[in-house]
């Protein structure tokens, strides 16, 4: 079953996002990682059979930035099944332009993530399967 992951070092953001996703039809509490490295480890774990993920990825994180995460992710086998939505508090258009260069990036969202915004994502054909 397709699953949602949240990677953000801000625990309040993680909490609020989990709640909003659940409001938008996600039946479980999405798994969250404060450190992007942990997220990578999880995705690489062979015991984890699930390959179909939608990741809400923060850009500015202390140990590994969102960009570095994406670079490593691209090298994974079957990484093409992973869709990433960039989430940032920055309103600098530079980041949005840069995100186009990464094949896994599906969309770019400026914080805050709201219920309305999540519902828009859910309405997209490719993403609807994650909101169950």
């Amino acid at each position, binding site marked *: 079953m397709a699953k949602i992951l949240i990677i953000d070092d801000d625990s309040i953001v993680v*909490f*609020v996002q989990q*709640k*909003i996703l659940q409001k938008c039809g996600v039946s479980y509490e999405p798994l969250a990682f404060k450190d992007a490295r942990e997220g990578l480890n999880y995705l690489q774990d062979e015991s984890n059979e699930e390959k179909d993920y939608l990741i809400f990825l923060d850009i500015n994180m202390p140990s590994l930035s969102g960009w570095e995460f994406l670079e490593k992710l691209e090298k994974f086998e079957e990484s093409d099944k992973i869709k990433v939505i960039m989430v*940032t508090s*920055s309103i600098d258009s530079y980041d949005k332009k840069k995100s186009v260069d990464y094949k896994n990036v599906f969309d770019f969202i400026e*914080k805050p993530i709201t219920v309305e915004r999540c519902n828009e994502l859910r309405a997209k054909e490719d993403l609807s399967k994650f909101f169950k």
Partner: protein
Amino acid sequence: MKNKKLNILVIEDHLGDYILIEDYLNEEHLDIQLTRATRFSEARELLTAAHNFAVVLLDLSLPDADNNEGLVKSVVALAPKIPVIVLTGYSDKEFGVKTLSLGISDYLLKDELSAAQLSKSIYYSIERNYATIQLGESEKKYKSLFDSSPLPMWVLERNTLQFLNVNSAAINLYGYTYDEFLSMTVKDIWVKEDAERITSFWKSSINDTFKTTVKHYSKAGKIIELEIKSNPIEFDGKEARVTLATDITARVEAEQALMLSEQRFKALVQEASELVMILEFNGDYSYVSPSSKIILGIEADLLINDNFFHLVHKDDITAVKEGFRKLTDVKRIQLKSYRVKSECGEWRWLETILTNLSNDLSVGGIVANSRDITEFVEQENKLIESLLRYNIVSKATSDTVTDYDVQLDKMEFNEGMEKMFGYTQEQIGSEGEWWNKNIHPEDRENVEAKTEELYKSGASNLQVEYRFKCADGTYKYILDRSFLVTDEQGNAKRMIGSMQDMTEIYEYINTIKNRNARLKEIAWTQSHVVRAPLARIMAIIDLLQVQEGVADQSKLLGYIVTSAQELDEIIRKITEKTEQEI
């Protein structure tokens, strides 16, 4: 003649006849001495030997001569210069006439002879003979004069102009032989272009003496110019004219050379752009070349009645007159450039060389050769003005002005080198290397490359930035604008530059750059750091609005407070940082 004794040879075998002759002659009281020959042989001996016979009386009936004609011929031959009078008994008139043609002087019949007749015949014969000899000698003299004249002479038939005689000077001049001349007419040697004129001239004065110049061809085809004098004469019974010629070819050539030389002189003086004047010591003109029209706008004819000094500028007249005075000591002098007034009232600058030729008869004055140097003087003035301006600007500018002699590797600086960089006069080097070594080592390569490129490209402007070492060891940022001066071949000659101190400007720019970087940092912080708690608050509020009676409401409100405090903290930090910058 009358004072001399008359010697008479009487060739007469008959004594009676001889005595008769002697009587007749005595009867006429002639002072005579008779010598008698009775035979031809005797007469021959007397005539062959030295003698002073004035006349020979010949009787034709001699014992040793039976042929009268032969006898007459022999005696005439023996006495060529003496008149021979034949005495005969024959009254054979026919023979008498014939003997006259054989060269005898008279023929007398013995039977009709009288004392008076005999003496008359003797005197007449002697006088006639004398006249004939004189005439012959005169002719000979004239012939010799004609032949040996150093001037060419010829005799022409007056109507046909056929050569009848020609002397050796003419033969030498023309190269034709005597016989060749005699087979030609003078028309054959006329130069064609001259033929028409000489024909009409000759026809109009056919019987007159005339004098003219003619052009003839020599046998070799050379044109000879002659001055001829021709007189009508009778020559061997023909109407003729004798012509005396003087070869004037050399004279004509000399005249032509002189004419050419005069023309050349005229061309040089009259057509030249230089103004040539001949002046008196008091400045009166005696000649002005036509170039006065070009230089001064005044016709030479108008100037000639005036005085040269009237044209000279009042500030220059003293120096000009002083130059004229000096000519009494030196022959040639160059006047310091001076101004003269042109037709339109403009002052023209002249450079003049005066040569005193007042003792030269062909000139008789001071020759002034003048050149219009107005444009040159104007340019020179502009240059001086420009140099003055350069010096003023160089002193006034706050820049350091450099003047580098590329070929001598010498460099000069204005006061800027002391004021701007703090060097003392003693510390400032005069060679390019001194300047070069004070350029910051990191900039030197770029400066050298750009200078080299300027030399090669043929461009004249160079703008380059570098750091230059001050006397205290610090560096100043310099904007150097240089202008390259080249010679006619395009080789670099001088480099004039201005070094502008850009240090303050650069420091100001750097300050602005740093400030910009920090402001950018603030903007980034605002975008990322400030928006993080704000976005959080917005997200929580959104969640609270959607979720009524949510279980985690107090937890979420707590998150709002935390986020708001965080936000407040960030804003304070930004304010502090911004205040520091400003």
